[in-house]
């Protein structure tokens, strides 16, 4: 018994570390329990499954505007980059942007809610669950998501999952990396940056800080700087976002970031290195300000250890040199500290959620059916 349990444990370890490598480990099995870890993000939604499948799509949903576009697109609903690409023919939603806010009085909230539900259904479909398997999932949600958002997510998930649990996103990241004691997690998403202090127990409200200096903030700041520096250039936020995803960096010494933008209809090349760097650097001080709050309110005996164990996760952590910039700022504000970027920024949350799902005892799953 214990041997087989150990074998299973070993498998789970491999799965968490290596992702797809175990996808075809035992293809002859026809039934079982499929665990899903889902990171429901403003910009991207990712899933890691115990069948080895890992998928990510951008969190965009579009519905054809009219009969003509429906005929043209041959689909009732489009997701991810396809939706983004064809957004002019679509009623286009970035649902998590609305869902993660606390203000549910905004226009189109219900439509965004439906879009979020469709998106979740799609990501579960992409995990390729077999029809004869039980599917149990843990979904990472922002620590401060409203009860209505959680309600919507649970309702949707229950249609596709046999049992579902929600957990805080930064906690899932830490759990996935087995760093549960004296760790600070920075999860930089598109809409929010979540800071979470782990001290061996479940983080409480006072252990978590959410700030809005995140990916979207960088995009808007980049746009402002572009208007100042290159007023003749024509662009949209989406165009700048693509430039950012290719070239983002806070390093002083990098290859020049060249972007082609139209000027009066003519494609023109611009050097946007400085503007982009400046926009990216803008998120560093508020993040370190948040870290300072979490460190300064921690047990003084363990503050040094906490400062030296800062984890950088989320899509925003892919900005080149960001962890070093945070360290420099920590040095200024906190007198030192060590920041580590996690190996898989895109799947950090979903890997952690998958590990939680795997470790969860059977009776808990049963009760939450």
């Amino acid at each position, binding site marked *: 018994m214990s041997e087989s349990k150990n074998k299973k444990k070993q498998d789970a370890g491999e799965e968490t570390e290596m992702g797809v490598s175990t*996808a075809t480990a035992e293809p002859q099995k026809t039934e079982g329990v499929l665990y899903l870890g889902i990171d429901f993000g403003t910009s991207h939604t990712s899933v890691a499954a115990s069948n080895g499948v890992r998928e990510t799509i951008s969190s965009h949903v579009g519905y054809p505007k009219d009969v003509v576009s429906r005929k043209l697109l041959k689909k009732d609903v489009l997701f991810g980059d396809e939706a983004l690409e064809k957004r002019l023919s679509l009623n286009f939603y970035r649902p998590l942007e609305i869902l993660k806010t606390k203000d549910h009085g905004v226009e189109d909230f219900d439509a965004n809610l439906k879009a979020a539900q469709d998106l979740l259904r799609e990501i579960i479909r992409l995990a390729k669950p077999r029809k004869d398997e039980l599917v149990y999932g843990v979904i990472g949600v922002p620590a401060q998501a409203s009860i209505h958002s959680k309600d919507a997510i649970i309702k949707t998930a229950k249609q596709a999952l046999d049992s579902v649990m929600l957990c805080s996103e930064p906690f899932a990241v830490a759990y996935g990396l087995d760093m549960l004691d004296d760790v600070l997690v920075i999860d930089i998403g598109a809409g929010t940056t979540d800071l979470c202090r782990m001290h061996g127990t479940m983080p409480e409200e006072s252990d978590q800080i959410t700030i809005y200096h995140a990916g979207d903030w960088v995009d808007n700041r980049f746009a402002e700087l572009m208007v100042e520096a290159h007023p003749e250039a024509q662009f949209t936020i989406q165009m700048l976002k693509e430039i950012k995803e290719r070239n983002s960096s806070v390093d002083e010494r990098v290859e020049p970031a060249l972007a082609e933008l139209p000027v009066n209809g003519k494609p023109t090349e611009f050097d946007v290195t400085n503007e982009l760097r400046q926009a990216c650097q803008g998120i560093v001080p508020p993040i370190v300000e948040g870290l300072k709050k979490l460190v300064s309110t921690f047990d003084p005996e363990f503050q040094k250890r906490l400062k030296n164990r800062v984890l950088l996760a989320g899509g925003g952590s892919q900005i080149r040199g960001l962890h070093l910039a945070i360290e420099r700022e920590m040095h200024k504000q906190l007198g030192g500290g060590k920041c580590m970027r996690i190996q898989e920024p895109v799947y950090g949350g979903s890997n952690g959620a998958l590990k939680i799902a795997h470790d969860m005892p059977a009776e808990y799953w049963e009760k939450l059916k």
Partner: protein
Amino acid sequence: MPSPRRSSVRSGVERTPILAPAHVTSSGTATPTTEAAATPATPPKQRLSTHQMLHLMRLEMDRALKHGYPISALVVGLDGFDEGHHLPWRRALMPAIFQELKTVTFQNDVRGLGVWTERFQLAIFPHVTPDRLLVLANQVLERAAAVRVTGVPEGEKISCSAGIAHNLHPGPLSFETLVEEAETGMGLAQSGGGAKVVQAREVERELDKLRDEVDSQIAEIQQFQSQMFGDVENKEELWGNQLLSKVIELFKREPEKSEGVLRVEKEVIALLKSELAVWRETSTVGQMIERQKQIEMLERRVSKLTESLGLTETELKRIAQMKSIDLGVSSIYRTIQGLSGDEGNAEQKKEMLKNIFQANMDLRGQLAALKT
């Protein structure tokens, strides 16, 4: 709740649809030639493009759905002769087979609309029930096997498969789903050896029936086993005790028992007890043997049904692979895992997992309270 083993032939299907634009380019291109399978009275003179014909078919389908009359679809395809190497043969054979289809419809006094390409023939028949279409389809297949055309060597064996679909089952149906169902039927027929007519829905229903049968047989065996001992023993025990009581009662009627009577009474009761014990044993054993036989028979039947179900499902999987149907990817786990006690910080993690669970329970409670 449906059995978890139940799966649909159609579920998750991504077919190469007959109605995909690649297959319905307008006439005049190299690929399709389209003809109307006209009414018996007027042999085919009118030539319409595939698009026009499909449009007419859609109209027929809409009318059938609106007025609630039966409409059936037939998709016929050649077995073998792949489109890469034998395209000229297909181009020669398909119009000839389409001609056979028309002949069969004329002979059976059936009206319909049809199109053909090198890959398939599609025909729909308003007011035709599936059983009637099945007869027609078999005739078409029979005639198709005898078709000889120039360009195809004499010795080549020609056979076709067909799929049938209809609108007589419940649930929403569109022209597209009707054609898809018929195409699935044709796919099943071809991968099952060819020269067959298949209704995909019927296959699905048959599978469900098999699954139900297996389930009920298993339930029956379990019931048998649980009842067998208690039931038999209780009844016999009761009857034996009653008999013994009656005999004792008889002896009690004698007010003054002589020594001889007392001895006889004792002997009779002892004899009765031992006889009853022997009889009970033999009778219980007999019944058990009988029931065991029944159980064995049921078990044999279950094993056969399971084997048959397994074969059918294997065959479906094979077909699914051929048709790029995604059945999903199996998990590497067969049971719920749970945290192993061997892990370093197991206790700490257990506490955290408990907290996550509790937070989720609280959330459900809050949501329930909100609803009320």
